[in-house]
């Protein structure tokens, strides 16, 4: 428990390491999209919810933490975008596949900073 907490503090002090963690989570989101597209088609109007939605929320919170650590003007541009996405998800609880992909694209942009 203590070691885990210390590891979190370490990550907050290490943007490069934090980015690696974020990349792992973003890859999971990408995998989910690919699975859904494979099963239902790229233009599917399917609704994303439950665990896939929780994964996305966790990843967006992680991305928010990441840009806070980067503390640059470029990173700050993404702060409002992430907060808006989280607020929308909280309000609506579901996303269409297109909206889910849109959130994934935002995460990809953040990884490019």
């Amino acid at each position, binding site marked *: 428990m203590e*070691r885990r*907490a*210390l590891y979190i503090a370490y990550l*907050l002090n290490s943007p490069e390491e934090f980015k690696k963690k974020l990349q792992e989570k973003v890859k999971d989101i990408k995998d989910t999209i690919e699975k859904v597209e494979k099963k239902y088609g790229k233009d599917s109007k399917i609704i994303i919810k439950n665990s896939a939605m929780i994964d996305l*929320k*966790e*990843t967006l919170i992680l991305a928010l933490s990441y*840009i806070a*650590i980067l503390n640059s003007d470029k990173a700050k541009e993404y702060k409002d975008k992430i907060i808006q996405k989280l607020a929308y998800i909280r309000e609506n609880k579901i996303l269409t596949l297109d909206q889910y992909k849109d959130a994934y694209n935002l995460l990809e942009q953040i990884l490019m900073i």
Partner: protein
Amino acid sequence: MDENFQYPYVIPDLKTRFQIGFGNIIEQIASLLAYSEMYGDTETFDNEELKYKLRAAIAYALALLGSTWGYAMSAQTQRDVEMAKESLKALFSRIIKDPELTYLDLLDIYYELIQKVSIILNYGTPIPRPRTENYDIT
């Protein structure tokens, strides 16, 4: 005292203990932010637990800042430390004084807090990398 007595583990220094405390609480906050609507209806969701934990995290951040005392610092860093302290106090005060804080406001406070702490963690000695590195941090 028994001369053969040994502590079961090395007691961490003060700064490390505050880092551990902060790491613990910030993880709980991130979970609450991610799972918030699971606690009930969005409209009636009570943010009190989130506010309480954010206040605790700010207190840990202030303690962390205090634990940097004694490290050699440039005049600029000393000014940065003072500014960070005032910013953290302002965040704490915002939570106490504004009863109408929304989920969006709390996300904003979370962001500001992480930003300040990541700066504070740079003061003093660097954090050693823990041996375990395969944690899922959310």
